[in-house]
Every structure is written in structure tokens, then in C-alpha cells.
């Protein structure tokens, strides 16, 4: 075990950038959440009125958690903890898989295993790194809470709850790495388990029972199936339960022990779930560039589309609750706060009813989702070019135009599919609302309105790929990020108008206006076509940029 410190340090060194980004993201979320709570729900009365309404809306409970009274720290915990649990879960499972199955697949584990480090020390080093990082996340979050005035024991328990969830999912990640033959498979299984944990918690919270005070809830039994649910049950600012922490740590420890046993008993490069044999022959769909690009992007595109549909469903279902909220005498004040926020998201000239503001405002997020999927398709072209598979295709009688337009086509189709399924999801969610017909037409227009801006971003990413292939992955995502920050949140951050105008999202037609002005949509569609055509022409003219 003399090798353990070396292995541990090597892991921290490899992850140094990622760790900083993750930790900064966590701290930022807590700070931003705290700011939003003080701003929007400043006093006990406001929080009480919001909680009373939220308790009656399962859809909001699913997204947030179970309220625990009007204490500002407890309110923050209620709003954010479920999401933080999801994040820490993904962080830990990815970390566990990267340093175990990922190393094994890349052949690094073989190299390390041939040294005195042996079979178990690398696994132990990975587990230790995960535990230390979980503790760090907890310490940072507890520290921020303490700095915002939470009492010491509450802040400590809050951090501990998040750390414990991290440790539980660390075990999940390690076990998945033992089960699956490839890191892609292990990451997929682990992410599914984490998401399922989030979903079970959501079910438990939606089916919770209201406490006699009318301001707090106990989660339903579904939550007991989820480590995130256990973390929530700690209720660090109110009940201060310790035993759910033990539950999380025990799960992590059991899974670690099982993984260590498997690791020391199995062969290198073997897995509990055997790798499925591939097809002997290619299906007919795999005959040209479009079939090939579809095959490589099928799973992510389906993922984004399902995400869009679910988002639409929740959006449709929650909309009516928001209207009810404003229509109760209690809700006027909280409702006004929500209306202001939504108006800022929806754009400077947005008018119309609250429910339409809500719908169109949130459809901006669907636009983000769609654009991410579209940009991913273009980035795939770069990965194929750098990875050498593009060379194989282009050495066959396939023109650059035919090759690259396949990525553009799949990217654009992915954008359209995400928006379409979000609209369909919203239709289902709207069933039972009053004025269904009118609502549905607004939703459909909101979905359509997002399309041109998304296509412009995909086209600009394509142009980046054509002009600076080697920098295109970083630059492509940067373009998207800037467009999102300026266009979707520019209003919230109070950027001047000319800065916001840089983003195509800023020019998305406002469907809540009296008469919808679609001229910007036509202009943007034209820009998208011209830019995409230019990018394709440039791809034809440049050298294939291999490697790096």
C-alpha cells in the first residue's frame, strides 16, 4: 500500500481542472440561490404564502423538494437540495468510472497493475479521492450557508448531508464500473441510477403528507428508495436527523466492499455484465454519411428529445398552478414576484396573461436544450475528423459536401425534434386546464419561435468548425454559452440592449405580444441557411485537419 499516496496524488493531478470547476459551480449555485431567496421571498410572510400554495402543487414539489417551514435556511434547502444531490451524484459516479473502468479500457490500468500497486490500490485511491471530494463539497456548501447566517450545527449538517449523498453515489459508480465492460456503459448505467434516485425523490416529495402547521411536509415512501431522499430527510435546519447520514455512508461502504471483492477476483478487462456481441453485418440504414452520423448521435438525440418532452410536460402541468397561485388572495404578492421574473425572461416587449408569460418564458429553456443537441452534432464532425474516421469516409467516393451536410442535417433535425416533442409534452401537461385550445396554440407558437435562433447557433458552430477546426470544440460550445447567457438571461442580469442583441435568442419572436412579429424569425432562418452554406463551402476548401 506504499503506492497509495502516489496513486491518490496522480488522481488529484489529473482531475485538478475538473475539480475546481465542479466546486466553483456548487458554490455559485448556493450563492445564487441565497440571493434569489432574499430578493424574491424576503420575509416570513412571503415565504409562508408561497409554501402554502406550493404544498398543493405536486408538480412544483417534484422539481424542488418538501418544504420545512419558513426559516430562510430551511427554505433554501427545500428549493435546492434535490438538484444538488443530482449534481453531486453525477460528479461522483463519473469520477469513479473515469479512474477505474475508464483506465482499464484505455490500458492504463494494465500499466499500473504491473507495478507493485497491484489490483486493489488503484480502486482504494479512487474511493479515497471521491470521499475527500465529497467532504470538500459539503464543507464549501456548509461554509457558504454559515456565511449567510445559518447556525453552525445546521450548516454542518447541511454539508454533511450533501457529502453523504456523494459517498453513496461514489459506491454506485464503483459498482457500475465493475458491472460494465466499457466506461461508456458504466457511465450510462450510473447516470441512469442517479437520475432514478432523483425521480424517486420527486415521487416521494409529490406524494408527501402535510404536517399540522401547514408549512412543512414529510416525503412519501418513494423517497426512501433514493439516497437523495435520505439526504433530504436529514432536514439539517429543522429535524436534524443523523441516521439518514449513516444510511448513505453504509450504502457507499457496502458497494465499495463489493467492488473491491469483484476487482480482486475478476480478470483484467472482464466485466460482470458481458459485452454484447455486435452485429455481423451492417443494417441497410448504415449505408451513407447520414446513416452513419445518425447511428453515432442516435442515443444523445433521443436523450435530448425525451428531456424536451418531459420539460414540456412539467411546464404544461405547472402553468395552471401558477395562475391559481396568483388568483388566490394570499398569492398576489408572490405572484407579482413571479410575473416580474417571467417578464424579464420573456423579453422587453412581452405582454399578455401570466400563464402565457410563464409558458413562453420557460420555452426559452427548451430552446437551450435544443441548441445544445444541435451544436453537439456539429462537434461530432470535429471528433470524427480528429479521430481519423472522417479520413476513412472521405477516402471513399464521398464528397465533402455529402459528408458535412449529414452532420448539419442531423443537427437541425435534432433541434426540430426537441422543440416538437417539448410542444407535444406541453400539450399532454395542459390537458385539464381551462382554455386548452388557446393555451395549446400559444405553446406551439412558442416552440416554433425558438427554432430560428437555434438554427443560427448550429450554423455558427458549423462555421467555426470550417474555419478553425482545431479550436472548434471549445469555441463551438463558447458560442452557445454566450448566446444563452446574453439571450436567455440577459434580462435577468440587466445587460444593456446592444449586448443582448448579439445573441440570436434575443431576437426570438415574442408570441405573447398582441400581434406576433415573425420578421426576425425569417431573417434568422435566412442567416442560418446562408451561414451553413458558407460553412459547407469552406469545409470543401480546407485541408482535413487530423489529430489534436
Amino acid at each position, binding site marked *: 500500500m506504499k503506492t497509495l499516496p502516489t496513486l491518490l496524488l496522480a488522481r488529484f493531478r489529473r482531475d485538478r481542472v475538473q475539480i475546481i470547476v465542479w466546486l466553483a459551480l456548487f458554490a455559485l449555485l448556493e450563492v445564487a440561490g441565497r440571493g434569489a431567496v432574499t430578493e424574491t421571498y424576503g420575509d416570513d410572510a412571503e415565504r409562508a404564502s408561497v409554501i402554502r400554495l406550493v404544498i398543493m402543487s405536486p408538480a412544483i414539489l417534484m422539481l424542488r423538494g418538501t418544504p420545512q417551514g419558513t426559516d430562510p435556511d430551511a427554505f433554501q434547502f427545500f428549493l435546492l437540495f434535490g438538484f444538488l444531490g443530482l449534481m453531486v451524484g453525477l460528479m461522483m459516479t463519473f469520477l469513479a468510472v473515469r479512474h477505474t473502468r475508464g483506465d482499464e479500457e484505455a490500458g492504463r490500468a494494465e500499466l499500473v497493475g504491473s507495478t507493485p500497486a497491484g489490483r486493489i490500490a488503484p480502486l482504494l485511491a479512487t474511493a479515497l479521492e471521491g470521499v475527500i471530494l465529497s467532504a470538500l463539497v459539503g464543507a464549501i456548501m456548509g461554509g457558504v450557508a454559515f456565511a449567510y447566517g445559518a447556525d453552525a450545527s445546521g450548516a454542518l449538517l447541511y454539508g454533511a448531508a450533501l457529502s453523504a449523498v456523494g459517498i453513496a453515489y461514489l459506491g454506485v459508480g464503483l459498482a457500475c464500473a465493475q458491472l460494465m465492460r466499457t466506461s461508456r456503459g458504466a457511465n450510462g448505467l450510473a447516470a441512469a441510477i442517479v437520475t432514478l434516485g432523483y425521480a424517486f425523490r420527486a415521487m416521494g416529495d409529490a406524494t408527501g403528507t402535510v404536517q399540522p402547521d401547514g408549512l412543512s411536509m414529510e416525503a412519501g415512501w418513494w423517497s426512501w428508495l433514493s439516497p437523495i431522499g435520505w439526504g433530504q430527510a436529514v432536514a439539517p435546519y429543522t429535524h436534524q436527523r443523523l441516521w439518514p447520514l449513516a444510511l448513505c455512508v453504509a450504502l457507499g461502504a457496502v458497494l465499495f466492499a463489493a467492488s473491491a471483492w469483484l476487482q480482486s477476483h475478476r480478470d483484467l478487462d472482464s466485466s460482470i455484465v458481458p459485452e454484447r*456481441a455486435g452485429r455481423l453485418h451492417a443494417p441497410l440504414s448504415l449505408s*451513407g454519411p447520414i446513416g452513419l452520423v445518425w*447511428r453515432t448521435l442516435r442515443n444523445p438525440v433521443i436523450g435530448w428529445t425525451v428531456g424536451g418532452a418531459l420539460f414540456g410536460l412539467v411546464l404544461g402541468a405547472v402553468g395552471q398552478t401558477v395562475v391559481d397561485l396568483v388568483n388566490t388572495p394570499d398569492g398576489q404578492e408572490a405572484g407579482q414576484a413571479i410575473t416580474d421574473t417571467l417578464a424579464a425572461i420573456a423579453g422587453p416587449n412581452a405582454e399578455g396573461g401570466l400563464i402565457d408569460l410563464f409558458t413562453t418564458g420557460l420555452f426559452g429553456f427548451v430552446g437551450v436544450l435544443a441548441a445544445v443537441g444541435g451544436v453537439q452534432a456539429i462537434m461530432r464532425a470535429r471528433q470524427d475528423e480528429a479521430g481519423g474516421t472522417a479520413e*476513412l469516409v472521405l*477516402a471513399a467516393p464521398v464528397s465533402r459536401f455529402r459528408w458535412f451536410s449529414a452532420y448539419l442535417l442531423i443537427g437541425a433535425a435534432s433541434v426540430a425534434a426537441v422543440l416538437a416533442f417539448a410542444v407535444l409534452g406541453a400539450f399532454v401537461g395542459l390537458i385539464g386546464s381551462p382554455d386548452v385550445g388557446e393555451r395549446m396554440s400559444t405553446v406551439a407558437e412558442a416552440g416554433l419561435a425558438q427554432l430560428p435562433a437555434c438554427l443560427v447557433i448550429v450554423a455558427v458552430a458549423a462555421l467555426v468548425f470550417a474555419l478553425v477546426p482545431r479550436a472548434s470544440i471549445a469555441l463551438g460550445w463558447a458560442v452557445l454559452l454566450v448566446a444563452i447567457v446574453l439571450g436567455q438571461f440577459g434580462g435577468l442580469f440587466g445587460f444593456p440592449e446592444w449586448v443582448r442583441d448579439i445573441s440570436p435568442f434575443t431576437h426570438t419572436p415574442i408570441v405573447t405580444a398582441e400581434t406576433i412579429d415573425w420578421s426576425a424569425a425569417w431573417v434568422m432562418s435566412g442567416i442560418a441557411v446562408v451561414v451553413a452554406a458558407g460553412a459547407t463551402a469552406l469545409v470543401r476548401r480546407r485541408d482535413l485537419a487530423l489529430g489534436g
Partner: protein
Amino acid sequence: MNTVIETRGLEKHFGRVRALDGLDLSVEAGEVHGFLGPNGAGKSTTIRVLLGLIRASGGNATLFGRDPWRDAVELHRRIAYVPGDVNLWSNLSGGESIDLLTRLRGGTTDKRAYAARREHLAEVFQFDPSKKGRTYSKGNRQKVALIAALATPADLYILDEPTSGLDPLMEAVFRQEIAALLGDGATVLLSSHILSEVEHLCDRVSIIRAGRTVETGTLAELRHLTRTEISFAGEGIDHAAFATIPGAHDLVVDGARVRFTADSDAMPDVLAALSRLRATGVTVNPPSLEELFMRHYHDEIDEPARSSLEGVR
């Protein structure tokens, strides 16, 4: 004879790096042309220019008399290519990758012939097509590209170090398959730094170095430039008599053996002299490409320490 590949003063610059610096290459129809050079000499760069994947910075290149950049798609219908470093789609099985590459080349029009050919190649190369791309070793990835290239007929095969990941048994299979192609009149450009492979297969070779052609010709022509290595048992022969061997270079007395080299065209006189000396245990090693190759990179390799006995002559 028709010229299939022709480059004159071909240049390719990557920033300030001159990857190709005036490369001349001429490949005739129906020949196997060896394209030799150490790593980084510009072999792969030349091939990528010929395939229209990158554009030449200067000079000119033609394939079948056409421009490889402008007419890439039409030319590729006649070409099969195996890259030096084969990378596959991680989520496609080997069999799927082979089918895809063949379909892209339009090679599945005769389905039955293709299926039989693929089956045959998978068998001789002992290749399992059911595994996923990411789990294949380097050699197996290379087999995917080789099987796809050989499964349908082409006029020109461009093979970039095609056997660098294959074991000796598979190299032999590769040679057999290439030999079979030649019966059909195909042209092959075979880049390599494995000399035995080139000696076995190639009619003509071009040796390149730092982006330039330094030697080109048939093996016989090039052998002319090299020397035969001769050794015999020196016991009982007066050392002074060694000087009577005409055309002997670098003569070394190594214990009981005497070694020297001679120009290939001086061999009849050398053999006559050896018989006059009544030399026994004579071995004659024909000139190898290895030697030629080494000579061109001579200044890159440390001069081997030799105790020259030139003065004895």
C-alpha cells in the same frame, strides 16, 4: 504503359514545416510500387495529397491523369485505401464497419460476390467481425481496413504501412492476397518501412527522405548500387593474398572468417579469385534493400565501429 500516379516537385507546408519538399513519384499501371522512408519522411502526407484529403502547396500531382483535389470523388471510385493508423467507430462492430466502407465505395452491387469475398478474407485473416470497434487491438483495426479495401475490386490500392500491426503469419496472408490482386492487373502503392515486405512484393521502389525522393527504380536497378557481402574461411591462406581479390571493399579478418563486400557487377572476377585461393566455406549474401536503405540514412545512424583492413590489400 500508363502512368497511374505522377507527382512532380510536390510540396506541402504545414505552417513553417515543409512536410513535402519537391517530391517526385511515378507509378505505372499494373505495378506494385514500394514507397519507402522512415517515420516522418512524408509518406502519409503524400498519400493524403493523392487522396485529396489535403491540398498540395506546390508542384503537381495527378492520379489517372486527373487532379486528386478537384476530382476526388470520381477518383475514389477506383481507389481502395488502408490508412497507416486505422481508427474505427467505437460503437460499430467490425463487420458493420467493413460493410459501411464497402457500401460507401459502391462495392455491394454484386451482393453475392461481396459476401463470399468478405467471408474469405475474414477467414484467412482470422478476424472476428462481431466485436465493437473500441475493443479491437491495433492489428484487428488494421484488418478491418484491409478486408474492406480488398473485398471489392479497385484499379488502385493505396496501402499506408498496411502490416504495421500484423503478426508474421498475417503478413504472409497479406502478401498472398496482394499477389492475387496483381493477377487482375491492379496497381498498388505500398508505403512501408519494413524492407522484407517491399522486397517480396514490389516491382519498383521510391525511397523518400525529408519530403524528397532520393532514389527510385526497379529492385534490380537499385541492387546495382549495392554491394554483395562475401565471407570465407581464412585459415591457411596468406593474408597478403587477400589483396589479389579484385573489387573487394571493407575487408575484415574476423577470427577464422574473412569478410568483404564487392560491387555486384564485379562478382564473376571475385568468384574466380576465390577459387584461385581455394577458399572454403564461402557464403554469398545478395544485396538487400536493407543495405540500400541504410545507406540513404547513413548519416543518421552512427557509423559502426569497424577495424578496416584496407591496408592489407
